[in-house]
C-alpha cells in the first residue's frame, strides 16, 4: 500500500530542506538530490506495482472526491510517473559532472521540476493540474536561463511569454467548465459533460488544448523550443525533453479522453500533430548546430505522439505511449551526449564533430539512441512508430500515414548525416569522458535495448489503453 501523495511530498520536503543543508555543506546538496531522486524512483516502481492491480485514489484531507482534491493514478499514470522518475534519477547523476552556480538553488529547482511533472500526471483535479502546470513551468523558466548568458535569457523570455499566455488560456478553460458545472474534479466533469452547452464545451476544450499545447510543443505554439533548448544547460535540456514535455502531453491526452470524453478519430488533433511532425523534421534537416537539430527533432517526435493520440484507435494510442517512453529515454541520452560532445570539441557545429563518437563509451549509446528514435526493430522506438502506423491503417487514415512515413525519411537522412560525421576518422585527440558522463548514457541505452527485446511488460501495462480512451482513469 503506497500513497501517491508521498511522491509529491518527498521532493517537496527536500526542496524545502536543501537551503538548511546547504548552510553547512554546499557540495553535499548534489548527493542529497541524487538520493532523493533514487527514492522517488523506488516509490514510482512501488506505485506502478499497485496500480496494475487497481486504480489508486488518494483523498487529500479525507473529503469525498468532488468536495476535496483527489489524486488518482491509473495504469498509464503509473507508467508515466515511472518514466519521469527514471529519467530524473539518471539525469541527476549526470548533474554531478556539471556544476551550476548557485548549486543549492539549482538542485532545488530540479527537485521541484520533478515534483511538478509527477504532480501533473497523478492529480485528479483540474485546477490542481493547473497549479502543477505552473510549478513545472516556473521551475522550467528558472532552469532555462540558468547559464545567465544572453542566449539563455533570450530563449527563456520567449518561453515565459508563451507559457504564461498558455496558462491563462488554461485558466479561462477551467473558468468556463466551472461556470457550467460548478465542479473541478475530472471524473465528475467527465460524468456530467453532457450538461454543458455544446458551444461552451467546444470553446473550453479549445482553450485548454491550446494552453497545454504550449508545453507539449505543438505546432503553432512551439517557437520557444529551439531557443530554450539551445540556451539552457545540457542536463536541463535533457530534463525538459523527458519530464515536463511528457507530463503535459499526458495532460493533453487526459483532457481529450478522460475529461471531454472524445473518442474515435479526431482529425483536427491528428492533422495538427502531422503538421508538427513536418515542421520539426524539415527545420531539423536544415540545422547545422547539434543542439538545435536535436531540439527540432524533438518537436517532430512530440508531433508523432500528438498524432497518435489524435488518430484515437486503441493501437495508435498504445503506440503514442510507447513513443513517449522511447522518446524520453533516447532524447535524454542524446542531449547528455551532446553536452559531452560540445565540451570535447568546443564547438556546437555538426561539421566540427569529426570522429568525436569514435570512443565506444559514447558512441555505442548514441547509436542505440538514434536507431531507437528512427524506429529500428530491436529497440523501444520501433514499437511506438509501428503501432501508430498500424492504428492509422486501422482508422483508414491512409493519407496521414503516408505523409508520416515521408517525414520519417527526412529524419533518417539528417541523423545519417550526423552519424557519418561523428564516426569519421578523428582529426585530433578528444578528452575521454568521466564515469558520471557515460554511466547515465549507458543506463538509458541498456533500458532501450532491454525493453526493445522484451517489450512484454510494457504491453502488459498498456493493455488497458482502450479503457482509457473510453474515459477511464
Amino acid at each position: 500500500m503506497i500513497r501517491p501523495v508521498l511522491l509529491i511530498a518527498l521532493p517537496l520536503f527536500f526542496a524545502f530542506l536543501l537551503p538548511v543543508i546547504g548552510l553547512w555543506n554546499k557540495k553535499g546538496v548534489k548527493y542529497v538530490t541524487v538520493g532523493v531522486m533514487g527514492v522517488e524512483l523506488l516509490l514510482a516502481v512501488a506505485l506502478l506495482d499497485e496500480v496494475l492491480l487497481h486504480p489508486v485514489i488518494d483523498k487529500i484531507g479525507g473529503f469525498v472526491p468532488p468536495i476535496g482534491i483527489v489524486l488518482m493514478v491509473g495504469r498509464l499514470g503509473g507508467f508515466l510517473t515511472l518514466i519521469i522518475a527514471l529519467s530524473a534519477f539518471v539525469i541527476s547523476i549526470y548533474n554531478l559532472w556539471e556544476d551550476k552556480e548557485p548549486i543549492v538553488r539549482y538542485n532545488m529547482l530540479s527537485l521541484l521540476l520533478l515534483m511538478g511533472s509527477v504532480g501533473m500526471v497523478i492529480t485528479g483535479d483540474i485546477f490542481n493540474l493547473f497549479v502543477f502546470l505552473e510549478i513545472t513551468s516556473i521551475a522550467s523558466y528558472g532552469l532555462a536561463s540558468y547559464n545567465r548568458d544572453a542566449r539563455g535569457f533570450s530563449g527563456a523570455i520567449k518561453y515565459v511569454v508563451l507559457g504564461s499566455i498558455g496558462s491563462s488560456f488554461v485558466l479561462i478553460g477551467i473558468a468556463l467548465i466551472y461556470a457550467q458545472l460548478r465542479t473541478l474534479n475530472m471524473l465528475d466533469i467527465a460524468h456530467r459533460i453532457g450538461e454543458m452547452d455544446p458551444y461552451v464545451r467546444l470553446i473550453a476544450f479549445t482553450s485548454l488544448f491550446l494552453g497545454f499545447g504550449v508545453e507539449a510543443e505543438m505546432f503553432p505554439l512551439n517557437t520557444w523550443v529551439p531557443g530554450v533548448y539551445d540556451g539552457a544547460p545540457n542536463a536541463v535540456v535533457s530534463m525538459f525533453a523527458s519530464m515536463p514535455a511528457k507530463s503535459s502531453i499526458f495532460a493533453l491526452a487526459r483532457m481529450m479522453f478522460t475529461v471531454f470524453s472524445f473518442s474515435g478519430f479526431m482529425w483536427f488533433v491528428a492533422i495538427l500533430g502531422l503538421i508538427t511532425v513536418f515542421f520539426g523534421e524539415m527545420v531539423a534537416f536544415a540545422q547545422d548546430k547539434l543542439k538545435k537539430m536535436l531540439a527540432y527533432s524533438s518537436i517532430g517526435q512530440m508531433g508523432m505522439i500528438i498524432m497518435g493520440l489524435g488518430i484515437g484507435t486503441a493501437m495508435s494510442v498504445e503506440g503514442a505511449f510507447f513513443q513517449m517512453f522511447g522518446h524520453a529515454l533516447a532524447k535524454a541520452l542524446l542531449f547528455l551526449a551532446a553536452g559531452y560532445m560540445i565540451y570535447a570539441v568546443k564547438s556546437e557545429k555538426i561539421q566540427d564533430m569529426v570522429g568525436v563518437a569514435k570512443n565506444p563509451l559514447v558512441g555505442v549509446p548514441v547509436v542505440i539512441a538514434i536507431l531507437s528514435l528512427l524506429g529500428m526493430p530491436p529497440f523501444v522506438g520501433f514499437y511506438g512508430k509501428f503501432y501508430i502506423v498500424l492504428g492509422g491503417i486501422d482508422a483508414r487514415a491512409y493519407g496521414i500515414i503516408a505523409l508520416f512515413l515521408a517525414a520519417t525519411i527526412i529524419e533518417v537522412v539528417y541523423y545519417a548525416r550526423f552519424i557519418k560525421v561523428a564516426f569519421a576518422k578523428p582529426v585530433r585527440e578528444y578528452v575521454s569522458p568521466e564515469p558520471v558522463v557515460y554511466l547515465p548514457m549507458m543506463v538509458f541505452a541498456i533500458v532501450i535495448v532491454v525493453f526493445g527485446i522484451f517489450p512484454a511488460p510494457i504491453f502488459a501495462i498498456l493493455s488497458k489503453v482502450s479503457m482509457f480512451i473510453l474515459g477511464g482513469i
Partner: protein
Amino acid sequence: MIFYAASLALVAIGIYVVISKRNLIKIIIGLDMIDTGVNLLLISIGYVRGGTAPIENGNYPLYVDPIPHALVLTAIVIGVSVMALALSIVIGLYRHTGTLEIDEIRGLVK
C-alpha cells in the same frame, strides 16, 4: 454581464500588447493585464445576485460561491511569481545586450 465583458476586454488588451509591442517590459505589463482579467472573470463567475461574502454571520441566508475566491487567491500569487521571474530574466538580458527591444536583441543574439 458587464463584468464578463470588462474582464475579457482586459484579456484582449493584454493579448494585443503582447502581440504588437516590441518592448519586453511592455510585454510583461501585457501579461500582468491578462492575469488580472482572468482573475476578475473567475470572481464574477462566482457572484450570486444579492449574496454576501461567504463568512458565517448567523442571519443571512444567501452567500456567494466561495470556490472561485480560493482559486483566485492562488492565481494572484502565481501571477506575481511569474512576473517577478520574467522581470529578472529581462534584467539579465538587459545586462548582456543593453536593450529591451526584441528586434535589436534578435540581431545581437545569434
